């Protein structure tokens, strides 16, 4: 049986961002001590970023259920409390989530600030996994499907006007004018 079929994925528990750390601490005390992943989902329609984390009970191993915790924060500020105090290895996931989505993780006063240095990119600020970030391979190149035999008619005949086919794989969000640099650095 594939690993992902072992155990069930439980429904998502949505918390407020300010309760994010407390909720993780409570879950950890209930035995959900293994953080399987932490990532984010961009929801441009509601101008929110959802942080989502999957937890397992270490005692149950890989056969146990996965419990999902989530919180939503505004896209432009995207401040979320770090859960490194509960799961030290969340530091890697938080670095990656910051690099890919521009989420800033914060720690309580008195604790060291989360390490948010980029893991892959030489410069941050593009947030590659936000849905509004255009993929250059799709926006910097002309779609080959735009050309048509009718563009080169026989001598003496004119090019017939036609409706240009819709370019696939390029969401309208990528073609919108870039938003002012209001997103945090």
């Amino acid at each position: 049986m594939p690993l992902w079929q072992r155990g069930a994925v439980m429904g998502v528990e949505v918390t407020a961002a300010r309760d994010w750390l407390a909720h993780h601490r409570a879950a950890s005390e209930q035995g959900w001590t293994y953080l399987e992943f932490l990532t984010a989902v961009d929801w441009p329609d509601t101008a929110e970023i959802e942080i989502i984390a999957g937890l397992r009970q270490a005692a149950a191993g890989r056969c146990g259920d996965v419990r999902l915790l989530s919180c939503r924060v505004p896209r432009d500020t995207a401040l979320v409390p770090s859960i490194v105090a509960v799961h030290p290895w969340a530091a890697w996931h938080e670095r990656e989530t910051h690099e890919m989505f521009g989420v800033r993780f914060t720690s309580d006063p008195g604790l060291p600030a989360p390490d948010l240095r980029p893991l892959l990119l030489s410069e941050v600020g593009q947030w590659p996994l936000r849905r509004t970030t255009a993929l250059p391979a799709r926006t910097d190149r002309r779609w080959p499907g735009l050309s048509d035999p009718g563009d080169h008619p026989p001598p003496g005949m004119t090019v017939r006007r036609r409706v240009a086919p819709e370019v696939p794989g390029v969401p309208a969000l990528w073609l919108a004018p870039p938003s002012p640099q209001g997103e945090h650095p």
Partner: protein
Amino acid sequence: MTGEHAAQEPAARIELLAANCTSCMLCVRACPTWCIQLDSHQEIDPDSPGRRPKVRNVLDRFAIDWGLCMFCGICVQVCPFEALEWASDAVRAGTRAELDATLWQAPAGGN
């Protein structure tokens, strides 16, 4: 792989049967990796009967960028004229000129 495919030669390249191609652009527009380039023009069919001249498409150049192609076979499936087919001889790494020599180009002097 299904049993039907297992007995066949491995699919390693997509080949154009230029005689069947009508330059309809279906394969180019269906390709998810944008790896097919097709250049064509129109000319008057000299054999067309009647007074109104009939226009036909003429293929000039057909190229698959093997650096982008992921061998999904959608172009082979979508072609209504059976002008694309799987071939078993893989495209080998080489210089630009050697790779260009594997592309289909209209013969000099028209076809």
